[in-house]
């Protein structure tokens, strides 16, 4: 039974059909079961949050989606087809982009170059053309530069585009990382704790950017976040994980009143 129908969110946005479906995913590291038998789906155009206490397996889940881990059991369906085990770079080329919990920018490069790396998957001029900076290589460089500039504009980082990333403060680095992921024009954008370690103002900025990205580009977003206020405000549907199991799934209001979820967060003994 394939759910191709969309739904309408509380604030009246039409959400598309299923973009990704995870079926009975289990992930084991030796004897440790990080994720056991979790199924959920991500619809086109929605903001999907994964929440849960520390060590619940949220990041592992994201790593499975981005191809960094291969699930021990279970299937991952993407754009209507079952995804075979593949390398992370192949997954990225299929339109999955992500940011990291600990910033993973290329410190030795400028902001512009960092964001340009996000376009790598869209560039394919041969080494000969690149060596001569001629023909396709140069045209491609200019075309992609323009796309990157649009993202830079969008995220309001024009003034630092030529600054080496190593010199930037934390909040801006997070934004550059988002820019790099956005530059890839992904079908699905994975955000691993986009607001970790930020002050209120930076969180507000970041929330605004996430909503704008979703709104303007129609990008599907799947995010992990600890700040409950942010999660409940931003997301259309929430998956709650605890000890590698799914304990809740649904719109924020429904999840908020779920007894299992309340127990998990308040720490009821198991």
């Amino acid at each position, binding site marked *: 039974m394939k759910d191709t129908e969309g739904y309408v969110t509380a604030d009246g946005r039409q959400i598309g059909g299923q973009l990704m479906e995870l079926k009975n995913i289990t992930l084991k590291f030796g004897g440790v079961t990080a994720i056991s038998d979790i199924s959920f789906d991500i619809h086109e155009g929605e903001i999907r949050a994964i929440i849960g206490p520390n060590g619940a397996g949220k990041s592992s889940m994201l790593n499975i989606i981005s191809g960094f881990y291969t699930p021990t059991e279970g299937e991952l369906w993407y754009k209507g087809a079952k995804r075979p085990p593949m*390398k*992370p770079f192949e997954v990225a080329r299929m339109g999955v982009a992500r940011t990291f919990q600990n910033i993973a920018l*290329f410190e030795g490069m400028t902001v512009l170059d960092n964001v340009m790396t996000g376009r790598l998957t869209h560039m394919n001029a041969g080494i000969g053309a690149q060596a001569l900076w001629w023909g396709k290589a140069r045209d491609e460089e*200019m075309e992609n530069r323009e796309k990157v*500039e649009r993202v830079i504009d969008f995220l309001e980082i024009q003034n630092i585009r030529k600054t080496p990333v190593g010199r930037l403060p934390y909040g801006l680095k997070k934004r550059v990382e988002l820019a790099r992921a956005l530059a890839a024009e992904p079908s699905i954008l994975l955000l691993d704790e986009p607001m970790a370690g930020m002050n209120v103002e930076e969180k507000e900025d970041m929330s605004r950017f996430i909503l704008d990205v979703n709104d303007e580009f129609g990008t599907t977003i799947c995010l992990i976040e600890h700040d409950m206020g942010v999660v409940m405000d931003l997301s259309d549907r929430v998956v709650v994980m605890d000890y590698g199991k799914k304990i809740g799934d649904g719109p924020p209001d429904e999840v908020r009143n779920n007894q299992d979820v309340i127990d998990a967060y308040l720490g009821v003994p198991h």
Partner: protein
Amino acid sequence: MLYRTAGQFKTSYQADQALFPVRQDAVLLAVILAFAYVIFPLTASEFTFQTLLIPILIYSLAALGLNILTGFAGQLSLGTAAFMGVGAYACYKMITLMPWMNPILAILFSGVFSAGVGVAFGIPSLRIKGFYLAIATLAAQFFLVWLFEKWAWLYNYNASGAIQVPNLDIFGIYVAGPLASSITQYYVVLGIVTLLTVICINLTRGNLGRTWKATRDMDIAAELIGINLMKSKLTAFAVSSYIVGVAGALFVFMWRGAAEPNLFDIPLSFQILFIAIIGGLGSVMGNYLGAILIVGLPVLLNLVPETLGIPIKSATVEHLNIMIVGSLIVFFLIVEPHGLAQLWRLIREKLIIWPFPH
């Protein structure tokens, strides 16, 4: 003041990404090229050609090759000299097997062989990084030098075990061998070095360069944004070894005139690594500055006591040289770990905003 950029506006991304966004850089380069192509050849003596101009260019090229691998792609290599050897021996074999071959084409083509060998020895880089990879490339260093010694076919079974550069000409002008004049050889080297430098600049500022730098800075993130690490590392090994191989062929054919296996031993690898480090890892221009320092300094140190009339034994000068170069390396690593290129970058930044501090 000379470097003021006020009034130089960019109206397109193309202009912003041009090779010289600042006009003064282009002027400076034009002056340097004028010196290299016109003034030096007109004024240099045989001694200057043989001890400074030609070796500086060749060492710069070898360091540039190493820099692509270590500075841009982040893969440490200690086998540079051996890859130079592959280029030199490949060139020698091509020239002796096919005497009709254009020597310049032979030199450019010899890099293809070293690129192949480089890729083969680069395969371990897919699994190991850092110091461990350096040890793996060290294996290439020892194995290849051993091969140059033991595989008699490489030096055409001659009794000395060394390769001797024959007289080679293009349209009647000797470019290699005892009959070639220094100025011709200088121009050949300069032409090839210029060509390969332009190629390297283009590669490093384009897509491939960003792929390499991403691999260097954070390989996991690189893979997750869609970079095929295997391809990225192996192209770096290929391009790097190609350039190093061409430098090796030039080293023997345009400068030394003859070579035996131990010429390509580990001291040469280290010398080139020093040039790359002192010049600045991850910089194209740094290699030239580093080579000028490492090749030029000993010559200078030899000349100074002589011109001042101080009687010093040549052995003492030799030792002094080692001490001074050694302490300079330590000095640079502490004061400016990013090398001479970074020093120039800082000076330039200051010059652009001079006389204001910010």
